[in-house]
């Protein structure tokens, strides 16, 4: 939360505007870092009064799915012999859902991961699995920050700015 030095009579509008600016800057940084892409904005645009938590719900679904898929991949990679086709199928699934929510870096990692599956490279797959795990954890963290900032804006009576 920002601390206001000096002035003690900020209007509610000042607070909302400050929150909105912080949100916009944070969101822009996520786009700039390649964590999110325009598909995420498309999802935000689908949110309306009939579904005010649409984006949060889709994101939650994604993390439930991705956790399951990652566990499956880890288990498949531990078996002997490794069923690379199964791992590939799970990575393909994760690639699809990550692209659907605009999670660019996760999606791109999946593309690399698939080529290691195709090449049947055990080490390559292990490295990709770890990277995917890290990237999903990072995304979860960032989205949680984003959503809690959204709640603050809405709680203060403002509207959430979208990326242009």
């Amino acid at each position, binding site marked *: 939360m920002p601390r206001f030095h000096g002035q003690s009579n900020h209007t509610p509008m000042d607070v909302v505007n400050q929150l909105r600016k912080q949100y916009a800057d944070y969101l822009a940084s996520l786009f700039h870092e390649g964590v999110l892409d325009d598909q995420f904005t498309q999802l935000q645009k689908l949110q309306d009064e009939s579904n005010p938590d649409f984006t949060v*719900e889709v994101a939650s679904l994604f993390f439930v799915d991705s956790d399951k898929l990652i566990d499956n991949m880890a288990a498949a990679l531990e078996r002997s012999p490794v069923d690379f086709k199964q791992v590939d199928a799970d990575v393909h699934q994760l690639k699809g859902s990550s*692209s659907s929510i605009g999670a660019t870096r996760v999606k791109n990692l999946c593309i690399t991961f698939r080529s290691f599956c195709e090449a049947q490279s055990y080490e390559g797959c292990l490295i990709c699995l770890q990277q995917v795990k890290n990237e999903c954890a990072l995304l979860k963290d960032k989205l949680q920050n984003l959503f809690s900032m959204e709640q603050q804006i809405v709680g203060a009576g403002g509207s959430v700015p979208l990326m242009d």
Partner: protein
Amino acid sequence: MPTSQLHGVSSPKCEVTALVVDDDTVSQMIHHKLLNILGIENDVVVNGKQAVDIHLSGKKFDLILMDRDMPVMNGIEATKKLRDMGIRSTIAGVSSHSSSKEKQEFFEAGLDVYHEKPLSVAKLLSVVSKIKHKA
């Protein structure tokens, strides 16, 4: 208001119906929402076999959004089966990036149109504009 003005007033809801066939819960939610926004009543099933079964139960749809990769029965088999059953609905294949060979195979199964995931409002509108046969 004179009763003559009330007769013949059609429901403001759009009358196009759709079926979402996809095993990915994220895609299901997004496609369901996209269709709702366009006022299109839609059902969601999780694989090709359920898509076939729902038709066997007598339901029909103007539009079917068919994912390609699904367990039990994939989109290609389901599309073939539905066409064999005489289903003439507009079938839109939806999938993550696939090779031109895979796309061709999907089209040959009986697709009307194909789009890569993720679907957007724009892509969906272009699909809806292609609906020819009312179910």
